[in-house]
């Protein structure tokens, strides 16, 4: 009896996992379609039945993107610039603040942390109008730097880093304090090296999030020379008409590449970061 039930449950396990594998492949089909589409000639592109795998390998679409009237290279550089500045900025500001909130005692600490956490509930929609009006005054509209400034810190980042710090033992830090080390030295020499996985998680999450901003970019960076990749896709689609979807797909393949590579290399950190922020809430 015991043996048959474990055997039966093993078969159920296998059946469910196979079913999930099929579902997993379906989840990836849109990506397979977009990448294979980008290598297809225009004539091939719309042939039915649709194919999710490359039918030909041509780079003409990629060349067309670079030659398009939309300054794709400049837009790409804007996206990289904004994502890098924001990621570095958040790693610095969020880690510093998280160290103070997790390790140091000072008056008003918990109240200030609560005020910062409230920020998790404010959507971009409720901050964007005044920021737009302010940026218009100081000439930051249509400047990629403007969008980057908006996100140099984040409540989520401070929260995530604090969670990681609280999960670390503080014996070493206390010992260093006894030895008369300053707080900066303790932060830099002892806390920070322990936080490497957390820094990777926050770095990757921030980079992808910034890479993907749409509403904010649409409002602040309307001009083609200033805009970012997510905006450019819709513009390209409009310019080229639906007849040249293959070219849009070539642009899109190039646009999603950094995020996909980051994820393939550092899947573990992303998943850990997400779990950490989700579970302990």
């Amino acid at each position, binding site marked *: 009896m015991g043996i048959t039930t474990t055997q039966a449950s093993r078969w159920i396990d296998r059946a469910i996992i196979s079913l999930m594998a099929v579902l997993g492949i379906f989840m990836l089909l849109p990506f397979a379609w977009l990448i294979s589409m980008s290598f297809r000639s225009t004539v091939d592109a719309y042939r039915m039945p649709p194919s999710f795998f490359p039918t030909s390998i041509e780079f003409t679409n990629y060349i067309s993107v670079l030659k398009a009237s939309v300054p794709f290279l400049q837009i790409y550089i804007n996206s990289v610039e904004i994502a890098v500045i924001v990621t570095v900025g958040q790693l610095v500001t*969020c880690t510093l603040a998280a160290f103070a909130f997790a390790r*140091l*005692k000072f008056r008003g600490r918990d109240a200030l942390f609560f005020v910062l956490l409230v920020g998790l509930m404010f959507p971009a929609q409720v901050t964007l109008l005044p920021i737009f009006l302010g940026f218009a005054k100081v000439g930051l509209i249509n400047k990629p730097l403007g969008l980057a400034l908006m996100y140099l810190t984040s409540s989520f980042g401070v929260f995530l880093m604090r969670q990681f710090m609280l999960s670390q033992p503080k014996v070493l830090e206390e010992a260093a304090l006894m030895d008369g080390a300053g707080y900066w030295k303790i932060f830099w020499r002892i806390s920070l090296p322990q936080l490497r996985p957390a820094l990777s998680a926050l770095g990757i999450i921030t980079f992808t999030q910034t890479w993907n901003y749409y509403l904010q970019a649409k409002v602040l960076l309307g001009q083609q020379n200033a805009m970012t990749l997510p905006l450019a896709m819709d513009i390209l689609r409009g310019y080229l008409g639906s007849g040249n979807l293959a070219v849009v797909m070539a642009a899109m393949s190039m646009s999603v590449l950094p995020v996909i590579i980051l994820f393939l290399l550092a899947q573990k950190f992303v998943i850990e970061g997400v779990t950490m922020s989700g579970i302990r*809430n």
Partner: protein
Amino acid sequence: MSNTEFVRSELRASQARAGYLFIVPAMLLYLTFVLAPVVVTVILSFAFYDPQFGSHWVGLDNYRRFFTDPRSVQIFWNTLRFTAMAVTGNVTVGLLLALALNRVMPAWLLYFFRLAFFLPVIIAAAFVAIVWGYFFQDSGIFNYYLSHLGLPAVHWLTSAQTAMPSIVFMDVWKNTGFFMVIFIAALQGVPKTITEAAIMDGTPSWRRFWRITLPWISPVVFFAIVYASIGALQVYESIWILTKGGPGDATRSMSINIVEEAFGSFQIGYGASVAVVMTVVILFITGVQFIVSRRLVRY
């Protein structure tokens, strides 16, 4: 004051100084780009704002317009309807996926599953919505397969009845992996001793789920529902790229409305009031979750 006491208070003071210095950059930026703008938005929502030809206070007029104009009422309900459908879909599917995948498997298979279900989460909706837009076309891939199965074509995005469910379908494809990941982590926290005891007692599996697993992970389920709601209420680019809010106003969301009013028609005060309404809904949902999870959820 004795010597040790002096040293101790000196230590406390230097710790406080360091604390403030460490949080200054984050707090200043937070004040400038979050708190102050929120306050200004609330102020703007009571005004007709026009920097060129003069602004004036309008009291509650913007809000009155939002809640009485049939068009904005529809936009409000659209947003709530999208939120209800997307949250239900994302959380339910995410939980089912997590239950299916919460078993022992080789590492490469786990890597594949995380890749397959989480990749859509990290790719911008602005990108994938263009792909889905092609799939959803009247002469697109979905209808091609439907016609081969002998089924009538569906107006995925071009009919007022189906457009919203189609967008929700894409949204679940895109976001459910996030919820799957946090549910898997939550399921792994369910103590084995309890489930094993229940198995020994011969408790059927669906009953084990309702009586043991679900109550145990309920804090995470609550968090997921709130998190999904906050995201769904802000929906913008998925809809904008697939339907531009149409057909008619059938899929127009509050975010689309804010951008159109504030930057298209320069009704900045009115746009601000829509943003405030959205934020109040978010605060309300979060508040309800906070109270409910304190009262009902036992760890």
